[in-house]
């Protein structure tokens, strides 16, 4: 008779420390040496668990009468018996175990990313990014052309990108044992391309639709993209703890977006907002149909209604005091 199940004892980092084959349909787990699986954890009873096959043929864990009991791997509720068909993980004492049914199929073979593929992609995307940035710089260049004005911001950008990638590589080296620099660079460059495109889309939308908020609040989307990039980096480091990583990223994005939003209204309050036409684009990019003068002055009435309402409210002072034009 071959192996019918495997009991995996996990380390505190969550990877498999030992994997013990069991050649029967029942296994006993505990601290005593007459068990099939011996776990050295003072919070585990000498005879703690019995694993057996239930009536449906699936594995079940049973607490054989202990002080500290039995828990599902992510559960907070103590249980007497725990079916292991769906989730093979369980917790006893301070130890996490997984009981694997040998008859269950495992995930299919994953395609290996060919060696140097990440590096090639990172190089290609990096070149695309530089090209986009150069074109944008050229389109925004309104002074006499000057190599310094073009190269300095690019150089600064490349430095920041390199530092960012290096930081993630160090984290990857620590937690995964591999630096994965090429993959990290690929993720960072992809995110940068997305950010630049997002920014342009916001600017053009703002002009085309005469919709100023699109440009003013595009920073919120930028934070979301930054969050996605962080998620990508974390995922590359290891698929474990992704739920925690996701929570962290969402918290970061929400905090960033909130900072952006409140920072903007704070700036408005402290420095005020000059009348301007916003970021203009060539007239061909207009999408919004032309309004009549009547329509436009209806909008002026709406602005009046807004300031009339604001006028009755007590003004708030800025967080760091106000910069007054008269002082």
């Amino acid at each position: 008779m071959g192996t019918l199940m495997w009991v995996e004892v996990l380390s505190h980092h969550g990877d498999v420390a030992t994997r013990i084959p069991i050649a029967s349909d029942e296994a006993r787990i505990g601290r005593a040496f007459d068990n099939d699986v011996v776990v050295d954890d003072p919070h585990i009873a000498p005879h703690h668990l019995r694993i057996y096959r239930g009536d449906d043929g699936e594995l079940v864990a049973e607490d054989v009468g202990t002080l500290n009991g039995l828990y599902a791997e992510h559960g907070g509720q103590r249980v007497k018996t725990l079916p292991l068909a769906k989730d093979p993980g369980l917790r006893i004492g301070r130890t996490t175990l997984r009981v694997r049914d040998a008859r269950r199929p495992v995930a299919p073979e994953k395609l290996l990313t060919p060696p140097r593929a990440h590096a090639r992609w990172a190089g290609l995307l990096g070149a695309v990014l530089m090209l986009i940035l150069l074109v944008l710089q050229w389109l925004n260049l309104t002074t006499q052309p000057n190599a310094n004005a073009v190269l300095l911001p690019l150089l600064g950008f490349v430095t920041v990108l390199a530092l960012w990638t290096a930081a993630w590589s160090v984290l990857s080296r620590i937690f995964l044992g591999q630096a994965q620099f090429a993959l990290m660079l690929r993720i960072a460059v992809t995110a940068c391309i997305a950010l630049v495109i997002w920014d342009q889309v916001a600017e053009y939308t703002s002009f085309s639709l005469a919709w100023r908020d699109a440009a003013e609040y595009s920073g919120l989307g930028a934070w979301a993209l930054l969050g996605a990039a962080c998620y990508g980096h974390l995922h590359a480091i290891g698929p474990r703890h992704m739920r925690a990583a996701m929570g962290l990223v969402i918290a970061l994005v929400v905090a960033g977006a909130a900072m952006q939003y409140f920072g903007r209204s704070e700036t408005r309050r402290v420095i005020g907002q000059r009348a301007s036409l916003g970021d203009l684009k060539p007239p061909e990019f207009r999408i919004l149909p032309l309004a009549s003068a009547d329509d436009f002055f209806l909008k002026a009435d709406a602005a009046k209604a807004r300031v009339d309402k604001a006028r009755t409210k007590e003004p708030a002072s800025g967080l760091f005091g106000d910069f007054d034009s008269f002082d």
Partner: protein
Amino acid sequence: MHRLTLSLATLILAGVAAAQPQPPANTESAQAPPMSSAAERVYEAARPRILQIRTLLQAAGRQSTIGSGFLVAADGLAITNYHVVSQFALDSRTYKLEYLAPDGARGALQLLAIDVAHDLAVVKLDRAGLPYFEFDSRAIAGRLPKGERIYAMGNPLDLGFTIVEGTYNGLVDKSYDERIHFSGAINPGMSGGPVAGSDGRVVGINVAKSLGGESVGFLVPARFASELVERARKGPALTLDKARDEVGRQLGEWQAGFYEALRSQGFKTTLLGPYRGLESSAPWMSCWASTNADALPKARVSVNTTRCSSATGIFVSDRILTGRLDFSYSYFKALDLNSFQFAKEVSSRARGGGGDSDKRLTEQECRDDFVSTAPGRPPLRATWCMRAYREFEGLYNVTLLALTQDRDREAMLAQLTMQGVSHANAVTVGRKFLEAIEWAR
């Protein structure tokens, strides 16, 4: 613009105690210039009739601003500038008014009437029977000849009662509000003081001086003071609790008159490059042109601008100066920029005002649109921005920006700024300007 600011900027003359310069220490070498005997006579007669008007901070019992004033009736009525008493008028709980006569007598003042537009106020002393000034009937009828010697009196910089000899130079040419041009040195602290002819009759009231020129002073014509005294006598006295409302009412009245005058003076089209825009024909609009043709390094967009300003300014409080109308047209033409770069350059130049955190106004609200005023007219990218005065209902600061969108490498930007205007007037003028923008070739 810079030149305009320099030539027409005026300094309101109420002295602020904190800003008082110390009297020069070395006085022995600074001998008083010889004065005509007429000046001596005028001063001798005027001395018991002029006053120093002080605004005191009630809590400290000490002056926060000083100005001058003069008696105009036996019952103790005196004239000064509104801006000398504005702190008290707007906040009578924090401040109080006091006069100081040249003989050292002092006492409380009652505020009877204000004329914000002409910057005048009528106050009443707590005593009567003092000698007083008469108004010059020739000045009231506007028949004073240019070049006549007149004498400005007051207490400049809190240095003591002073008389300054100068020349009457008629009314300022390009000014909506009537102002006498006085060639003589008037200084902070003399605000509200009388300016009399050699017969001692009042022709005007010290109000401001030019910051750009030398010895260029401005006086309020005596006519308005005489009218305000009449109003103070006949009408009900100013209720201090309602003074703010009265200021708001007068501002509203002033802007109604100003925009009515603007309308009745008419408009004319102005040509800027290949575009046409609208310009006011009012003689009191002062216009200047500027260019970047001589910029170094060489500009990549040529910018030619004309700017016009009403140069009106109504002092409401030391924080609120209102009542100005400005408009400008800028013609941009790309020299070697593509349409994207051109749009970028124009964006950075299409910026109006309203960018400050003054809490007396609400935050600015803007509305954007693409507008076509009429078939055949260039489409416009337009923005309407406004802020409301918190203390004065129905008054706004409005900025209208409009940029032509018919060409991708040349454009005209129209900019209109109105301070202290009603929404209706702002819309009427704004619409006129917007609808006049056209391609001229």
